[in-house]
């Protein structure tokens, strides 16, 4: 019945029903879930509306999906339902360079937008490490970050207007410049639970006049993290400030040969983009601080090629760990910057306590850590140990005044952890927003909110 109705509405090419096809859509980069009942690949907002109406009528939940690169189960159909994939809605609809904006369909790949705008001297600033694959729609759903968010801000700072299909299949528009409640802001980061974005106006940023990239090597993680705190504390906020520890650097260098110093215990990758006039002073200040904190070496990338290679290494870090271990689990937490050294120590302690190897690659300037916990999923004991380590790390984040997700989202993975940072009243307020946009909890159910909560506003389903 569902298959027939979807095919009637969208055409055979736009609907997947065979089990071998459905299984591909059952997972994201975090985990897998139940097989969806069907997968729809709409071509436009009208198609999306039709899918939502049909699903609603037949009592099927809806799970929107970008590229499936999410790291906490946000795109996973926990209890089946119709997966709505935006693979066919991947066009840049308008490039309005005079007014520094672009209108895109949700399936546009993040980096593709920057490439298109690049010829005219612009780029799209939010740059999650997944940007070669992840889509604008998915970025909007998670309020995606990335290394350059330190200076440019996260996705929500770059969304100007949204076209959204609501839980009844109707279309509505939001615009940040309109008076009224900021619906755009509440939709960004709502992980598909408040509506389905079918197009977005996003802000384009001028490419900077000058870019410099530097690498500092340290003999221990503590010194590196104290250097980060000192840099920010000195009022220097570079465009990006990333850290990688020895575990990661070795894997990255083996995979990419970008010139990372493999003898270092920790490495800082720093970028400053802006006007040439400020570069020398910035470099001098950074060099002074890292040396004061015991840097073993400090060098700058000598060419755009070298800069690109260093960044490719950083962004490919997670994948490079395949050399170390068959599986890895990415944790995501954010702490105040001055607590970075303590947070890293806590990560190390948690990992040691559970016998897990950990590699750290993260946005040090934001205090946004990504410990990668290495394991073999065939080994049940290791799997259990990883889960416990992950939990211990989150607990430390909370104790240090931080949060349980800096940029990956809550998804399915962390919904029960929400009660560790928010009270029932806090969650109930969010629940009220959900009540307005998705009273029947049909849009990406089982995400964000804790399962089995007693208070009805807070229930996930």
């Amino acid at each position, binding site marked *: 019945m569902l298959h027939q109705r979807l095919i009637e509405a969208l055409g055979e090419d736009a609907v997947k029903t065979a089990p071998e096809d459905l299984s591909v859509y059952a997972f994201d980069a975090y985990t897998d879930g139940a097989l969806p009942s069907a997968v729809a690949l709409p071509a436009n907002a009208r198609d999306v509306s039709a899918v939502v109406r049909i699903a609603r009528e037949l009592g099927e939940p809806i799970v929107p999906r970008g590229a499936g690169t999410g790291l906490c189960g946000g795109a996973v159909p926990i209890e089946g339902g119709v997966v709505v994939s935006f693979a066919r809605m991947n066009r840049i609809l308008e490039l309005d360079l005079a007014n520094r904006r672009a209108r895109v369909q949700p399936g546009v790949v993040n980096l593709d937008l920057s490439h298109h705008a690049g010829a005219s001297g612009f780029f799209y600033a939010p740059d999650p490490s997944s940007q070669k694959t992840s889509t604008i729609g998915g970025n909007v759903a998670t309020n995606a970050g990335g290394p350059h968010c330190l200076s440019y801000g996260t996705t929500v700072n770059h969304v100007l207007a949204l076209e959204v299909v609501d839980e009844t299949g109707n279309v509505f528009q939001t615009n940040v410049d309109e008076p009224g*409640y900021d619906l755009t*802001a*509440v939709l960004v980061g709502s992980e598909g639970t408040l509506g389905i974005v079918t197009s977005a106006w996003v802000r384009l940023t001028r490419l900077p006049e000058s870019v410099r990239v530097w690498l500092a090597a340290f003999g221990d993680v503590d010194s590196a993290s104290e250097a980060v705190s000192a840099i920010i504390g000195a009022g220097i906020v570079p465009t990006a400030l990333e850290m990688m520890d020895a575990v990661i650097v070795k894997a990255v260098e083996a995979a990419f040969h970008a010139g990372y110093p493999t003898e270092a215990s920790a490495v800082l990758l720093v970028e400053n983009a802006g006007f040439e006039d400020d570069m020398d002073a910035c470099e001098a200040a950074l060099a002074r601080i890292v040396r004061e904190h015991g840097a073993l070496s400090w060098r700058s990338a000598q060419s755009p090629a070298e800069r690109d290679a260093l960044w490719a290494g950083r962004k490919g870090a997670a994948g490079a760990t395949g050399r170390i271990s068959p599986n890895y689990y990415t944790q995501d937490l*954010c*702490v105040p910057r001055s607590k970075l050294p303590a947070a890293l120590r806590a990560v190390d302690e948690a990992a040691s306590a559970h016998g897990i190897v950990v590699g750290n690659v993260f946005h040090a300037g934001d205090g946004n850590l990504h410990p990668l916990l290495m394991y073999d999923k065939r080994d049940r004991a290791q799997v259990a140990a990883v889960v416990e380590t992950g939990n211990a790390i989150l607990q430390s984040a909370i104790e240090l005044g*931080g*949060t349980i997700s800096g*940029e990956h989202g809550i998804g399915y993975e962390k919904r029960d952890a929400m009660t560790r940072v928010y009270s029932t009243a*806090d969650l109930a307020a969010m629940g009220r927003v959900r009540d307005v946009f998705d009273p029947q909890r049909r849009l990406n159910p089982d995400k964000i909110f804790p399962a089995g909560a007693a208070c009805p506003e807070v229930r996930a389903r």
Partner: protein
Amino acid sequence: MQELAGIVGRCDREGQKLAIQGGNTLAGMGLPAQPTDLTLSTAALAGVVTYERADLTIAAHAGTRLRSIAILLAQQGQFVPFDAPHPAEATLGGTLAAGWLGPRRHLYGKPRDYMLGSTVVLADGTIARAGGMVVKNVAGYDMSRLYVGSFGTLGVLVQANLKTLVLPRRSRAFLARLPERTRSRAVAQVSSLEIRPSAAFWVRGFATAIDGEDGTEGRMLVVLEGSEALLERATRDLRSALGRAGVPETRVVDAGVRESLERAIDACVATLGERSVTYRILGFPSQAEARALAIAELVERSELRAELLVDAMNGDVFVRVSDLDALALGAKIEGFDESLHALEPGAIVVASRHPHRSNLAVWGAVPAAIDRMRALKARFDPNGTLNPGRFVGGI
């Protein structure tokens, strides 16, 4: 905070309506809350809760005046770019609730972009927190941003957690006379400078807004901020640009730059007693001048006086419409309001003491998603206790 929550909850239960007030500096936006039984002032709920200089974060109570936050932060070489009128009176909560958009936002972002977390008192007296004190946080919905610009109709903001910026080392203001024939070129030049000015305003009328001098000619204010090196280069570029545009006289000041900027911002909401109404129209910088002139023409056709204050970097157009006295204005303003909104549906009123203000479409065209907004209001404040009638669509 507990006391405020108690009052709000009790009023809600007893069917009493509340007007929420901070510094009352933006009372000219929207409509006065009515009917109300009580006015709740957040002025006493003031003070910094925590300031972590090295983290570039600060949390303060809603009643804290913007000026005192600015002074505290400036001592540590930091700031938050609120750029709101009358910062000595304006409160943190009120400014955020009004969603004020300042002139340096094209460079630094809007106040909502600085929200890391919030504490609000909901209509039923519940205290709800969102976010935290970290600069990246995607745990749950971005409630803090939802409260910004909500004019106190979803909840009373009692605390805001913000991120701070490092203060630019240097700043400089350029005050120029802007004869009509030079304006287009000057504005085009200034808004396309490589090193973007932090702010650039031009005025026609608004006599004292730019340099405190009364004059009939147009004026321009450009503010540059940055390092010493950058400022020198930007100054050279700006001088050349203004020279090319034929701008006759430019005064450059390195002292009192903040005051110059504040004077221009205050002008955005300055009224001429009861005989004026100021509208704000948002749009692209590339279209601002043309729109401003079209609006001015419409004002003049309606036999009213138009004064223009245009933010060239963001594209905001402020037009102050006035007549000789309130009576004269009253006879024409409603007709004008209608024609203005036919031309610019998004025009909102930001300042007016005229008694007929409530008859105007002060919020402009009702937003497309108004039903959603009404539903949110109904869910958050079912009894309509908070600031009834203050907001768009009669919310």
